[in-house]
């Protein structure tokens, strides 16, 4: 796996780490002399497995040892406590090999991490989502290529910290950043803009953005369009002309595909809201927000229910904005969705993407809302610009998804208790050694993981209507519209 190959660099930073946790394990070994030969054999086996990972074993050991030392005394504790004293030792023996076996895989997976944050990624790579958690998110500017434009640098950090969040906002901000990239671009002598710009300037910028957060469908579509545009520029055209052509085209793209599209969609959608309606929406979508405000300004009396979820709490902002505009808003979390849905007469959802098999790819939890609405025969209306249409297909949310760092799931207080979290781009080797609280070792060592997906896939039969700038369609028309809009 790619995880292993990346581990070559791991040696030096972890060098200090194993020294710290080892003593406890040896202590534990001393204490556990009375443990059976089988136990020792297992330990040897585990060590062999660790050695097999050569130098990286250092990292693996560090994870293993605190756990073993923790587990052994616990087993002994449980013996007197458990009612059937006979079963006690048997259990511990039985359960022993399993953690060991598990740890083999774990140690291989976790050996490679020099950085604390990477470690978290290995942890959440539990069977199902191992394929999704490959690239850790970049939160720093360290080692960034010099080709990356300052505007893009700033943008990348805004992406990774969710300051700019939402498919549309990310797409627009990216195009604007690319505008300044193009503005400050001068063609080196001996090459043509059409050949040089994409490969030498745009690509590193895009790579950097990708490293901050996986790129959304709309961004991908926009990038594809932009690259296509650049490549098609006639080499005979002067540089300044070409640049102004590009800048104008980007402005046009934003205007046509996003701003005007939003306007049209929100106009159409707001006409769907009738007096007395209760509109339920999930998380936050810019286009749903404009739609609701537009309908409110048009004088339609209706109520809004915003359902939200951790960890991003995007709906909070939406609810606040709507309330500021004078709408009657109620707010609840996803666990109360089955109650919130009772009042609703229509469900408006935003999209991150519409897949070619008619499914909706949107913030995780959207599928739950759509499912509950479908159960009660409440129409689910998706508002989506055609930039977000893609030829990709997906049957479930597992094959393709974005996995966010799992520590984001914990609230600040919980993080303090469980994970004494440092600034994310710290030098990890030093502070792991520094504070070795129990919680920290739990977080690193136990096979307990947290999963933080960004999106889920809503089955197409839950979606009654997709409103795009090309009209209101059933979800089955997505591939057709996508074909038309890309052929232009």
């Amino acid at each position: 796996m790619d995880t292993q190959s990346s581990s070559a660099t791991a040696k030096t930073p972890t060098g200090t780490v194993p020294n710290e946790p080892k003593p406890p394990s040896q202590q534990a070994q001393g204490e556990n002399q009375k443990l059976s030969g089988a136990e020792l054999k297992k330990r040897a086996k585990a060590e062999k497995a660790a050695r097999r990972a050569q130098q990286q074993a250092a990292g693996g050991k560090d994870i293993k040892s605190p756990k073993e030392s923790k587990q052994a005394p616990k087993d002994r504790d449980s013996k007197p406590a458990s009612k059937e004293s006979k079963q006690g030792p048997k259990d511990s023996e039985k359960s022993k090999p399993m953690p060991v076996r598990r740890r083999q895989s774990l140690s291989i997976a976790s050996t490679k991490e020099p950085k604390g944050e990477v470690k978290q990624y290995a942890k959440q790579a539990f069977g199902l989502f191992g394929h999704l958690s490959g690239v850790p998110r970049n939160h720093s500017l360290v080692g960034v290529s010099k080709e990356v434009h300052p505007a893009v640098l700033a943008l990348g950090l805004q992406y990774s910290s969710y300051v700019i969040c939402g498919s549309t906002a990310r797409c627009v901000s990216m195009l604007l950043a690319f505008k300044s990239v193009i503005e400050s671009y001068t063609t080196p002598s001996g090459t043509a803009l059409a050949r040089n710009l994409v490969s030498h300037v745009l690509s590193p910028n895009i790579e950097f953005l990708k490293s901050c957060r996986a790129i959304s469908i709309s961004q991908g579509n926009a990038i594809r369009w932009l690259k296509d545009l650049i490549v098609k520029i006639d080499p005979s055209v002067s540089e300044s002309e070409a640049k102004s052509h590009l800048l104008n085209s980007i402005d046009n793209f934003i205007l046509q595909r996003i701003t005007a599209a939003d306007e049209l969609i929100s106009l159409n959608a707001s006409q769907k809201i009738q007096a007395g309606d209760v509109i339920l929406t999930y998380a936050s979508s810019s286009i749903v927000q404009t739609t609701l405000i537009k309908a409110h300004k048009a004088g339609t009396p209706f109520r809004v229910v915003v359902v939200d979820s951790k960890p991003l709490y995007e709906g909070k902002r939406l609810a606040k904005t709507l309330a500021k505009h004078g709408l009657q808003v109620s707010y609840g979390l996803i666990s109360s969705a089955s109650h919130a849905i009772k009042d609703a007469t229509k469900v408006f959802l935003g999209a991150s993407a519409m897949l070619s098999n008619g499914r909706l790819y949107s913030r995780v939890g959207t599928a739950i809302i759509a499912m509950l609405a479908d159960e009660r025969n409440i129409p689910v209306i998706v508002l989506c610009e055609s930039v977000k249409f893609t030829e990709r297909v997906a049957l479930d949310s597992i094959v393709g998804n974005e996995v966010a760092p799992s520590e984001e799931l914990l609230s600040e207080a919980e993080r303090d208790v469980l994970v004494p979290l440092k600034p994310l781009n710290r030098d990890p080797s030093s502070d792991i050694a520094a504070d070795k609280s129990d919680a920290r070792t739990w977080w690193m060592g136990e096979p307990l993981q947290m999963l933080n997906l960004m999106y889920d896939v809503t089955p197409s039969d839950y979606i009654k209507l997709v409103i795009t700038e090309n009209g209101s369609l059933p979800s089955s028309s997505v591939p057709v519209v996508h074909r038309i809009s890309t052929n232009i």
Partner: protein
Amino acid sequence: MPPTTVTVAPGLSSFLKSLKNTPVDSSIEHFIALLKRRQIRNSRPCAIATTQLLLRVVAEFKFRDVDKLLRRVREVGQRLIAAQPREMVVGNIVRRVLGLIREVAEDDAEVDTNAISDIGNSPVPLQSEFPRPTLASSMSTFSPLRYGSTSMDSSLHQSESMSDQGELPHRPPLLTSHTSYSVPNAPMVTSLFGLFSHPDSPSASSTPTGYNSPNGKGTLTAQNLERLSESTSSKANIKAEVQEGIKELMDELEQSDDLIAANALDHIHSNEIILTHSASTSVQKFLLAAAKKRKFTVVHAEAHPNDHHATHAMTLTGTKRDYDDDSDAEDRWKPLTAAGITVVMIPDSHVFAIMSRVNKVILATHTVLANGGLVAAAGARVIAKAAKVHQTPVVVVSGVYKLSPVYPFDIEELIEYGDAGNVVPYEDGDFVDKVDVDNPLYDYVPADLVDLYITNLGGHAPSYLYRIVADHYRVEDINL
């Protein structure tokens, strides 16, 4: 959020401690106050507290009149239920204690008056259950019923007690405390016998009779009571028997988790992915029992914003953090991870996304209702529905004591709403001022979303639960 009760704050353990040396009436007041302030909450603590309190009430009861005892327990029960109607276990326990008293009284009456009583009874059938007095008489005639006074089998259900008579000599004495939840097949023999001997009775193992009901026919009650007051020797036993029965009820509460867990291996297979929700000791024990033999993955939805602290504590340490444990030593379980199980914590929003890979959903419950529906922590309904959509079986794990005879005519009234500050902190004044924030604590999950119930009696289809209700509660007690 009340769970922030630290050790100092009043809760179950402090209540149980105070119970021994406070007068009953002030204990009742104390418990009512705790219920009202939600300082005792969730099914198990409520059930334990109610049982202990009723034990005290019965012990302190001075009169020898069964009718008065019933009235007293009922009166206490009504006050407790009024204090916190949504903790339905309180009502369940009160009903079971009432049923217990009736049973003991009936047995006692039958011992004294033997077969005469049924002659007195049969002409006075209560409508809707006319065949049952005859059935009861059949039982009393072919059994000396001496077991009643030995209190081994002051079992809670008459249908079971019939079986007891049939096989009393064969059973090892150890098993007797389990009578109410073992031998699923044995009753068939005797009840079939009952069926043949009384061909006109349509259902042999039906709800126990109500002929000794105080609000039954006047002459009958007077008759019985008269007889009861005649035989002073047996009356002394009644109280002891009832106390014994309540203690058995306590045993049942204690053991139900283990009995449920005994089914675990039948339902959890190797390498399965199990999804569960919120923090429940029953589910925890169930999974731990399976973890002894098999390796699987647990996906744990954390039930934000009300139970997620408890859920985190559960996955970390194996116990709920705020669970004021009176029995420290026994309650210290290992977390699942220590048993080699991979536990993946997910937010509630991931449920649908991950459901396509989940093999089984195991839900904890707050209360199970007679129609097979259940009330569980908020989010359970979404999980059950998502499981239905993905054709994933939903297994609900619950002790019989959570099974309530209440029919959910009005679902809304079962749902308690909690502190909105858990959803949006009150510091966010701007937001809280303008936006209505909802925080329901519970979800009602309809019966058709559940595939299987596992209780301490074994596994049941949701459609069968009414039968277990009928076994455990007297018809007279359903409306307290």
